[in-house]
């Protein structure tokens, strides 16, 4: 039946695109440190640093081999999870650092996305529902205002108000202590420490989704089938949630997928200001210290996280909107 095979073809195309994106990540990741001016040895430069010593260092890190050989080595290493050893935290293996910090950043980003979506979308629907009324204007103007606030500035503001003036939230670190009696205790501690960072990150994107949902719903509300549903005598709530919201949802979801890249960038900023020991902070420190293996690894994992999130968003989209991928 044309339906099933075209759906399969559609999925095959999407998967192919994701694989291509993954390949692009690998390629770009390899290229970045190598097109940068200077090389890792520049941070060791000092009075007694002879050319011979520099060559020795280059040899140790395998940087004197021809480029294509380096690339093959890089591919083999990356795909087996060997990201080498950190320059700045010699001799800690890079993978150790990643494993320790990745969950923290995942949690931060996940919580931010969840809150942005769970609060933003209903808010946008509510605004569209009351189009032109005071509620709508208030929500719309506030959303626009929040989109104008620099994330790091909001972070600093929150640190100041809730860290110093009214110290009710911690302003650094992921957890208060290294040991917790149970996972639940750990989770609570983590949540307590991430309240401010999550609020900071959510503000910007929440405003975005509110606006998107409102716009999407406003495009749908004038449609004929809404009027038909109304004339059938359904309650307002039934019309709204049963007929209007579902079609308004997919465009917002697709936008969610695109914006995840910008969310990852926000994580770098927020983690740095809050001294939150996640991937973002690691990347920033590594950049300052010219710690190439760490830079490469964090960039790789951040990009893969973005890819994974986009993939998840797309799956959600396909589940919600059965029109995609098949049918006439």
């Amino acid at each position, binding site marked *: 039946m044309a339906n099933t095979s075209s759906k399969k073809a559609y999925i095959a195309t999407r998967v192919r695109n994701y694989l291509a994106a993954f390949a692009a990540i690998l390629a770009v990741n390899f290229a970045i440190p190598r097109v940068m001016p200077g090389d890792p040895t520049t941070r060791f430069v000092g009075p007694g640093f002879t050319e011979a010593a520099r060559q020795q260092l280059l040899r140790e890190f395998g940087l004197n081999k021809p480029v294509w050989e380096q690339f093959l080595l890089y591919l083999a290493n990356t795909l087996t999870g060997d990201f080498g050893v950190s320059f700045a935290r010699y001799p800690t293996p890079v993978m150790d650092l990643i494993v320790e910090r990745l969950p923290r950043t995942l949690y931060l980003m996940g919580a931010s996305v969840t809150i942005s979506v769970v609060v933003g979308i209903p808010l946008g629907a509510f605004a569209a529902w009351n189009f032109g009324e005071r509620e709508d204007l208030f929500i719309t103007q506030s959303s626009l205002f929040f*989109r*104008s*606030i620099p994330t790091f500035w909001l972070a600093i*503001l929150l640190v100041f108000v809730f860290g110093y003036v009214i110290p009710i939230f911690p302003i650094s670190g992921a957890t208060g202590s290294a040991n917790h009696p149970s996972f639940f205790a750990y989770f609570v501690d983590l949540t307590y420490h991430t309240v401010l960072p999550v609020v900071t990150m959510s503000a910007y994107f929440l405003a975005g989704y509110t606006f998107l949902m409102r716009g999407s719903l406003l495009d749908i509300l004038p449609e004929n089938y809404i009027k038909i549903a109304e004339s059938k005598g359904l309650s307002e709530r039934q019309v709204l949630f049963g007929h209007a919201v579902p079609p308004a949802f997919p465009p917002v979801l697709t936008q969610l997928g695109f914006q995840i*890249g910008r969310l990852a960038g926000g994580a770098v900023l927020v983690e740095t200001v809050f001294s939150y020991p996640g991937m973002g902070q690691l*990347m920033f420190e590594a950049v300052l210290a010219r710690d190439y293996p760490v830079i490469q690894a964090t960039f790789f994992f951040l990009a893969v996280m973005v890819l994974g999130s986009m993939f998840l968003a797309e799956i959600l989209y396909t589940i919600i909107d059965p029109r995609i991928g098949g049918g006439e």
Partner: protein
Amino acid sequence: MSTTEETAGGSSSRRFDRFRRFLRAFLTNRKGLLGTLLLGTIVFISVAAPLIAPYDPEAYGVGKALAPPSVEHLFGTDDLGRDVLSRFLYGGRISLLVGVVSGVVATLAATLIGVPAGYYRGRVGRWITTAIDMSLVFPPFVLVVVFAAYAGSSVWNIILILSLLSWPIPARTIKAKTLSVRENDFVESTEALGASDFRIMRQEVLPNILPVVFANGILQMVYTILMEAAVGFLGLGDTARISWGTMLYFAQKQAALSSGAWWWMILPGFGIVLAAFSFILVGSALDEVLNPRLQRRTWGDD
């Protein structure tokens, strides 16, 4: 949706009339009016900074160090006794320059890539679209951090980096709009007459997507202005020159907030918020005026 505003080519007097109508609609729109006034003010004070700044932004000790806002120093002074307001006015020149130029370049790139992506059906269109989608995977700010740290932090480098990294999202929007414009009768009839692809894109498609491109461009500038501030704040900008970002970088380094000099951090930051907000007001007003949704107070009546 509505094709009443879209036409092929058009005589110049008709276009002028349309522009006047647009202008009127835009300026009666509350957001548009407020946004234009605010934006105009901010641009004006930045451009006129050398004339209206009360002090030399680089001059040390024109006031006591870390002095709170007063009549002489409306924004107070920083740790070296420099007038914060003057620094803010001068800083605006760099920040706005970076933001606007990057936004323009990014929108240009987005148009050059987005229009063919939407125009060409079949393999070419799909390939370009795939390229756009792949570019969305790379977190822009992360790359900005890496490049700014290594490629040097001159103003033009920052502009280049920001432009190169913010084009994918507007490219998608432009592609979507191109797709819908493409279906219009006059495009197909021009095609039937045998016009070249390039000619069609330039003369039929482009004029009709220009409103979307323009509105989008303004909104992109919000993003680039905020990113410039963030890059500067992290210390990766050109710390030798004053921009809003680098001002806040020094404020943070000197622990402005915890040492009580809140004006040094809060006031310039709020200035950034106002500037970004003015762009957003203008951009979203443009969007509203150019892409009207049925203006009904309640959707129940008809």
